[in-house]
Every structure is written in C-alpha cells, then in structure tokens.
C-alpha cells in the first residue's frame, strides 16, 4: 500500500515539475526504470506468494538499479552500449513477464 501510494506521488511529482534529465544520467535512467520495475513486480509477486520481505525488496530494488546502470556504463565504455542496453532490457522484460504471469495466476487463478 505504501509502495503504491508512493509510486503515484512520485508520478505526480514528476509530471508536475517536469525536470530535465541531467546529461550524465540520460543513458542510465531508462534502464534503471526498467530494472526498478522488475524489482517492483518481483515484490508484488512475493507478496502474493506470502514470502514478501522488506529487506529483500529494498536490496533487490537497489541492486537491480545499480547492476543495470553498471552494465550500461560498462557497455558504453566498451563501445557496445546500445547492444548491452538492448540485452538488459530484454532480460528484464522476460523477468517482468514471468513475474506478471505469476501475479496473474494468483489474481485470476489462471
């Protein structure tokens, strides 16, 4: 509940203030968002499974974002930034789909 409310508050703040993304953060922000979404869906699934743990959620959230950013950073410096970001997005997308599928089974029993 806290998480959902905070998500909405954050969205509203972002829409209201419309800040510009700093140049240095620009390649990382989309990947970080996708990684965080993965962590959030993982957390929802764990909550529905009854095994949600605050600590695990926080750590997975932060580490997801950091690792995704690190991979993109490395990729940019190795000259394969575009391909690596695509790879990261694909992997995270697969995970999100898996988590959503589990959530769906819980919610709709199907």
């Amino acid at each position, binding site marked *: 509940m*806290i*998480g*959902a*409310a*905070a*998500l*909405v*508050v*954050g*969205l*509203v*703040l*972002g*829409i209201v203030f*419309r*800040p*510009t*993304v700093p*140049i240095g953060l*620009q*390649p990382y*922000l*989309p990947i*970080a*968002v996708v990684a*965080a*979404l993965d962590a*959030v869906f993982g*957390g929802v699934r764990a909550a529905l499974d009854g095994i949600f743990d*605050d*600590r695990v*959620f*926080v750590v997975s*959230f*932060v580490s997801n974002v950091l690792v995704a950013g690190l991979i993109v950073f490395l990729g*940019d410096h190795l*000259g394969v*930034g*575009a391909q690596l*970001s695509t790879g990261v997005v694909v992997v995270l997308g697969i995970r999100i789909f898996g988590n959503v599928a589990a959530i769906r089974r819980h919610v709709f029993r199907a």
Partner: protein
Amino acid sequence: MKRPRIPTAWRFRFRAGVLIGVLCGLLGFALAVQVHSTQSSALPSARQEDLVRILDDLSAREDRLRTELAALQTARDRISSGSDRTVVALAEARKRSGELGVLAGTVPASGPGVVVTIGEGSRHVSSDVLLDALEEIRGAGAEAVQIDGTGASSVRVGAGTWFTDSGGNGVKIDGHALAGPYTFTAIGDGPTMAAALDIPGGVADTVRQVGGSLDVRQSRSVQVTALRALKAPQYARPTK
C-alpha cells in the same frame, strides 16, 4: 524479553516501509521524467553512436540534396539563358524582317526624305524621264520610294518596278496607269537626293526641256505607305 523486541521489529518494519515508499516514489518520478523527456525529444537521450549514425545519415542526405540542388540550378540556368537567347534571337529576327520589309516594299516606312513633284507642261513626261528621276533618287541613297500620280493608287517602288509609256497621256508603273503630275516620295538623305536631281543636265533639266516642272521639297518626316505584294521566288533559292 518480549516487549523490547516488538518495538524493534515494528521500528524496523516502519523503516523498511519508508524505504520502500521512497524507492517506489523515486521509481514513479523517474518513470514520469523519462517518459516526458522521451516524448519531448529523442535526441538528448540518444546515445553517442546513435547520434553519430543519425549525423551520418543527415550528412549523406545533405550531400544528396546538394547534388540535386546543383543539378537543378544548372538546369535552371541553362533553360533561362536558353530562353534569353530565344528572346534576343526573336527580337533580332523581327528587326531584320522589318528592315527587309522596308527594302522589299512590304511594310510602310517613315523617315526624313524628299517629296519630288514633277509637273507636266504642254508635253507629257515620258516614262524614261520618270525612270531617270527614280534612278537619281536611288543613286542618292533612297531607301523607300513611292510614286503617286493621278488616275491610280500609289505605287511602291521595288526591285522589280518597271515603267512603260501607256499611249497618249500617261505611263504605266508596275501595271498601274498613272498620269501627271507625278509625286515621288522618297526616304533617305534629303540634301543628297535634292542635289542629285538638280545636277546640270540631270533630271531637272530634262523635265524642263519637255516643258514640265520639277519641285523638290525636303522634309524631316515623310510617309511611304504604299505596299508591294511580295512574290515568292520561283527559281532563286537562298544559299548559305
């Protein structure tokens, strides 16, 4: 020992909840910001190699368009200079046609010149006198000449003009029967033509010998309005 543990766990849970809230809020914020920046413009968030590729594409496109522009400009220059040439050539041809028309007698002409009136006395002025007068005027540089008389319309003098006596009282010029007094209207240098007619033993003397009169009046502007019908040459062909 149970009582202290519960607040600790509660406090931990509260802290974790705040942390989760902060993280989720950050996520929402980042989501909104990213969506907004992607919508506003794709370029600032594009990575370096993408930008390089886009730039390359644009450069190639620019090169292509420049080539096209140069070709089109060349074509435009060619066409406009071509039409200029056509216009100049047309004007030149019109001018030339007018000049030739004046010489051939197919267009009316005006300009400085003389009006020569040959009056008849007791005897008729014969055609050879008129021919002499015309030859003198021509020799003095007349560019367009017409002959009027009583009895017929004006005759424009051309290269094929012919004179003949027509029985008792008149001449035939180009088939038109004319009678005196005759009037030559000639465009050219007035003083020269007047002097040519007036030389001793010349046309003026001849006319007076037959009892006629010759009057030369110079004018700054005379009109030669009679026209000749142009006959297409039957045998002669222009050669280059």
